[in-house]
């Protein structure tokens, strides 16, 4: 029987199998950040354990950093202490850190790929559930808890039961205005917020093959939102060309060899999956969520449903009450006062270019606070080099400095209680963007249009 992409990468990383079938999985790259690493460093120190392979760890500060005046000391005492603790730990343990002020600083899932740290065929972990992003390269990448961060620090390994395998095929021609974010929101709406639990997902079909690497990252990023540990897309020429020439990518002959290996990882024709779903690209339209989990998504032009196929009526009613929405209400025309374009889902240069293209020559609506948070210093620099900063400024959008920002509102970038925000991030949980904040997840296109209109609006008039 043939092997899947997932099998090939997984099997290449099994050190040994323990009693009961649990496998010891070797980890090639360990990304860390300030929020989920301090207790792991502390545990190692308490137990007198050294880092097993310090050169396989890369650190950045992203979750808890301000997006304004990053050159100044962080005002919030706890945040400053946590970020400083990361700097201190990295110095003490000899870990490469791209902290605040560094030209490579940014959201951990943005900098890994753009620096060529993320490569096909690797196993990659980070104390962050959106580590699934790196699966876009055909790597096995997943989020771990802090105890596991300590395990990888101590041994470069994790104890893992091999998950089940799912394939999701999307074939056909996407309509104009339908972005990778819409594709993944559509899939999650079909499968629910826990439809992928226990599985590792492979995204297959011409829609993903034709997607840019950044689009693939957006899709794999949200694998976790259907409960899956991760998502993957087979490495192809698009992958190879993206990695080529990046700072930490192999060079010369080594790159040629690596590229040949990467392209050999694709799922064999006779491989079998534990579950498989297929969707038509033509059925997908610009999406938006109305509820408090990412599975509660509908077409922007749809009305709020009266029930959710996957959650009980009580949970459904609770979600609608929190969101201040009525069943049957149209999403189009709903006034929103905040628009956030950013997060590890949609803060890359293509997202910013698209937003700039939409808002160029227009002004944001007076009621809207619109801010754009680039995923990294490099994305920020690129945006400025292309003049996107001026387009945003003229349209009344703020271009901030890199970080996780209003995706999880650990810093000052909070949406006030009761306010609606169209957000390109990945979670619409209660209070995710600040206590009482109400989140509508959408693509950068839907978000940019909402900022101009001051309300949720159809994107069609903005397509050219």
């Amino acid at each position: 029987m043939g092997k899947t992409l997932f099998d090939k990468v997984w099997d290449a990383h099994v050190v040994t199998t323990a009693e009961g079938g649990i496998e010891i999985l070797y980890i090639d790259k360990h990304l860390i950040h300030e929020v989920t690493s301090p207790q792991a460093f502390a545990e190692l120190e308490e137990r007198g354990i050294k880092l097993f392979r310090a050169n396989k760890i890369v650190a950045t500060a992203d979750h808890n950093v301000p997006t304004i005046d990053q050159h100044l000391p962080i005002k919030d005492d706890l945040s400053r202490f946590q970020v400083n603790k990361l700097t201190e730990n990295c110095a003490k343990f000899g870990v490469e850190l791209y902290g605040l002020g560094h030209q490579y600083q940014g959201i951990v899932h943005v900098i890994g790929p753009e620096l060529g740290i993320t490569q096909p065929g690797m196993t990659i972990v980070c104390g962050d559930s959106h580590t699934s992003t790196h699966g876009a390269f055909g790597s096995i990448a997943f989020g771990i808890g802090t105890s596991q961060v300590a395990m990888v620090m101590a041994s470069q390994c994790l104890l893992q039961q091999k998950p089940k395998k799912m394939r999701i095929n999307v074939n056909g021609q996407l309509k104009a205005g339908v972005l990778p974010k819409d594709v993944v929101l559509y899939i999650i709406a079909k499968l629910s917020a826990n439809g992928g639990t226990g599985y590792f997902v492979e995204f297959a079909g011409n829609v993903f093959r034709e997607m840019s690497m950044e689009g693939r990252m957006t899709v794999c990023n949200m694998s976790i939102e259907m409960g899956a540990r991760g998502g993957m897309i087979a490495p192809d020429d698009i992958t190879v060309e993206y990695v080529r020439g990046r700072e930490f990518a192999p060079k010369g002959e080594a790159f040629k060899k690596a590229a040949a290996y990467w392209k050999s990882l694709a799922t064999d024709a006779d491989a079998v999956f534990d579950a498989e779903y297929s969707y038509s690209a033509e059925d997908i339209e610009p999406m938006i969520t109305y509820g408090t989990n990412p599975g509660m998504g509908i077409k922007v032009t749809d009305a709020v449903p009266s029930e959710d196929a996957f959650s009980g009526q009580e949970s459904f009613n609770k979600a609608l009450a929190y969101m201040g929405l009525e069943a049957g209400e149209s999403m189009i025309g709903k006034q929103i006062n905040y628009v956030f374009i950013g997060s590890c889902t949609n803060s890359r240069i293509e997202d910013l270019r698209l937003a700039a293209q939409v808002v160029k020559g227009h002004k944001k609506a007076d009621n809207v606070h619109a801010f754009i948070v680039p995923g990294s210093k490099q994305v920020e620099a690129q945006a400025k080099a292309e003049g996107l900063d001026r387009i945003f400024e003229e349209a009344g959008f703020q271009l901030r400095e890199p970080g996780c920002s209003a995706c999880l509102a650990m810093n000052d970038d909070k949406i006030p209680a009761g306010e609606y925000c169209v957000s390109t991030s990945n979670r619409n949980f209660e209070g995710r963007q600040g206590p009482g904040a109400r989140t509508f997840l959408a693509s950068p296109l839907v978000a940019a249009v909402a900022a101009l209109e001051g309300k949720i609006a159809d994107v069609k008039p903005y397509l050219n």
Partner: protein
Amino acid sequence: MKKEFKELTATAVPLPIENIDTDQIIPARFLKATSREGFGDNLFRDWRFDAQGNPKADFILNDNRYSGKILVAGRNFGCGSSREHAAWSIHDFGFKVVVSSFFADIFKGNALNNFLLPVQVSEEFLQEILAAVIANPATELKIDLPSQTITLVETGKSESFAIDGYKKMCLINGFDDIDFLLSLKDKIESYEQQAVKF
């Protein structure tokens, strides 16, 4: 924090809500600590307290009738963020077991690594347990890890639950993964010698 777990008979707190995500269990703004202690104070923070910090009377953890070492919650408990702080806050608050009909993967792993036992039961049994506990807060549940059973004490109704054999051994004996992984150092180093190099 790390101890061991064999069996427990205790009362429970019912939380019949589905898809409880880790942002509800412990909101991100409380993740700024650099130690593992004290997270119980902010468990379910925005459901427990209003913006002024006053307890919300209608939330179950503020209802004096219900208490215990077992949290019984709706399907897909612990979805969302990988923050282990969610498991720490539940454990720190005093719970030793969470019962649900479905757990998110990362949360389940995090809980086990902190000696907080996730017990997955059928949806029918979950509803039965919730109804019994809501009707009578003195209802006791017995969780027996060696035999992998959960029993509604008053009716004797019981169901078995699954747990990975290795993690079961760790919980019963108070072992942890780091010790085990460190014992495999030679194997890990020889793997590195033959692995595809990156």
